């Protein structure tokens, strides 16, 4: 995974709450067996609407999505994160994220930063009166800057550390192989198995 320290890019105001993963990418787009090529499915239903924010050329090169509360609810599909990344997003900011979406973002290298709802409102207003304006997201300092607005966002320490270092989770865990083996040797024998010798 690439290291993430700070990012500056066009902010996209997505004035919607409860954007579920079926909105981010509908099921029919999930059939690919790679991690790439999902950008076409991103917000597929809304992309047909000329009024949709990404159809405004000022925002179409956006890389920082500023969304309403409860972003990423629903399915566990990591394709939702890949679709955002494949499109070009590096950061999503929202007042609340669904747990699985937040977890997937951290693993895949998309920064999911939690902001006060009032700050989200301010950033929306700023982005809407300055279409195409850039936002700076500093993961080290946990700050977001949009025009005169400067705010701190939340992201858990462990995820932040991994993103800053660009660390592969599996590699870290395999470093604890001895602990895993020790745990396995003490599991009760009646626990079910899917294969029988």
């Amino acid at each position: 995974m690439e290291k993430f320290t700070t990012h500056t890019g066009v902010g996209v105001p997505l004035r919607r709450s409860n954007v579920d993963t079926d909105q981010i990418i509908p099921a029919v787009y999930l059939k690919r067996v790679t991690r790439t090529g999902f950008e076409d499915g991103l917000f597929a239903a809304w992309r047909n609407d000329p009024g949709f924010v990404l159809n405004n050329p000022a925002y179409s090169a956006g890389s920082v999505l500023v969304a309403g509360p409860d972003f990423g609810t629903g399915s566990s599909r990591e394709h939702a994160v890949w679709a955002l990344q494949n499109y070009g997003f590096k950061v999503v900011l929202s007042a609340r994220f669904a747990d699985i979406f937040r977890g997937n973002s951290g693993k895949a290298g998309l920064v999911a930063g939690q902001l006060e709802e009032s700050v989200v409102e301010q950033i929306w207003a700023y982005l809407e009166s300055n279409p195409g304006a850039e936002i700076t997201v500093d993961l080290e300092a946990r700050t977001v800057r949009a025009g005169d607005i400067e705010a701190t966002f939340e992201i858990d320490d462990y995820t932040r550390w991994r993103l800053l270092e660009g660390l592969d989770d599996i590699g870290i865990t395999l470093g604890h192989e001895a602990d895993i083996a020790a745990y396995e040797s003490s599991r009760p024998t009646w626990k079910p198995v899917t294969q029988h010798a």
Partner: protein
Amino acid sequence: MGKTLAEKVWDEHVVRSTPGEPDLLYIDLHLIHEVTSPQAFDGLRLAGRPVRRPDLTLATEDHNVPTLDWDKPIADPVSKTQVDTLRKNAAEFGVRLHPLGDIEQGIVHVVGPQLGLTQPGMTIVCGDSHTSTHGAFGAIAFGIGTSEVEHVLATQTLPQAKPKTMAVTVNGSLPEGVTAKDLVLTLIAHTGTGGGQGYIVEYRGQAIEELSMEGRMTVCNMSIEWGAKAGMIAPDETTFAYIKDKPEAPQGADWDAAVAHWKTLVTDDDASFDKEIVLDAAEMTPFVTWGTNPGQGVPLGATVPSPDDYADPTDRIATEKALEYMGLEAGTPMREIKVDTVFVGSCTNGRIEDLRLAAQILERHHVAEGTRLLVVPGSVRVRMQAEAEGLDKVFIAAGAEWRGAGCSMCLGMNPDQLTPGERSASTSNRNFEGRQGKGGRTHLVSVPVAAATAVRGTLSSPADLVPAGV
């Protein structure tokens, strides 16, 4: 101080715990399906890593498979590639797979319990948010993303921050005709879709204890719809009776040892939860959704709400958008809403008990003119059991379509989809925009409401039906 059920099961699975880091949790069972696994196996291949415990891993084909002509090659080439990829990966990495055509094939959350692989006190994960279903047995079960699927394949563990705990106590008994589905839809309307975020929830109280295992699975299944990390129900005699003699259940002395342990998996009297919600089952009625998330629901006897009913501006806008998408007028009685398609199935309500209930209501009735009814068993075993009991004949006589097993119209990834503007009453778990097909409009309902709606063509409960055969 005592521990909650969730804390007991969690603590039993901690491989490693260090301050400032998430706990490393051991995973007892890893379930896999075709949609969220290909990139994970690719990752293993790239890193040259094996599957650590193929014997704790089980794969099935469900999301993307056809429910018609399932004995023939899959017609959609992209779907076929995804299913073929799973078969190739399972063979290469030594994972047990129940493919289309196999007698154990079906929706992953139906297959685990029916094989007896889902047991109390386990940790169970799957690249699917409705993994919460398995919590009905007193397991900690939750959905994970594909990166985590790869992590579990490689290490049989997951780093996880310990969630908070919540109790949802449902006192009293559900009235006649009110089901587990109505209970959970009522709860979600009460909490909103984000109400459970960050919590493992334990459902308890008389109404929960009185539920069958199928009913408990319906409740736990929808835990994710109000944002909970997982939902659990303490195992009891109902649980043990369900597991006993299932193919992968412990046998003989192992059974006794297992049950002795399972009996300890209850919340201690002096344990405390971070949050508690109390509901009264006796007040519950058939409950249906009107909007585009599972929290937007009302009793069947109510009317479509108006944006003006909400003080919060975000709720008002959400209501306006939902009504527009759903093509509904505020103030319309829910019972007057005309439905084009009724879907009975999914990991929420596609088990044998659900099909029995549907058949019982449909017996000697006919599906309304202009309405179609799709009955999709959750697994091949469920389909065979239903056919052994003659339920398929009841469905077909009533004018329903009787299909093969899979997720089907729950998510419309296979050809079973709504067309734009088409309205469904669905026993599944998500009414998101476009979930069942682009532009499709979904009302989430219980099995009895689905069956009665199919007969009347408008949202209905069995109480609305004129008795058949008189």
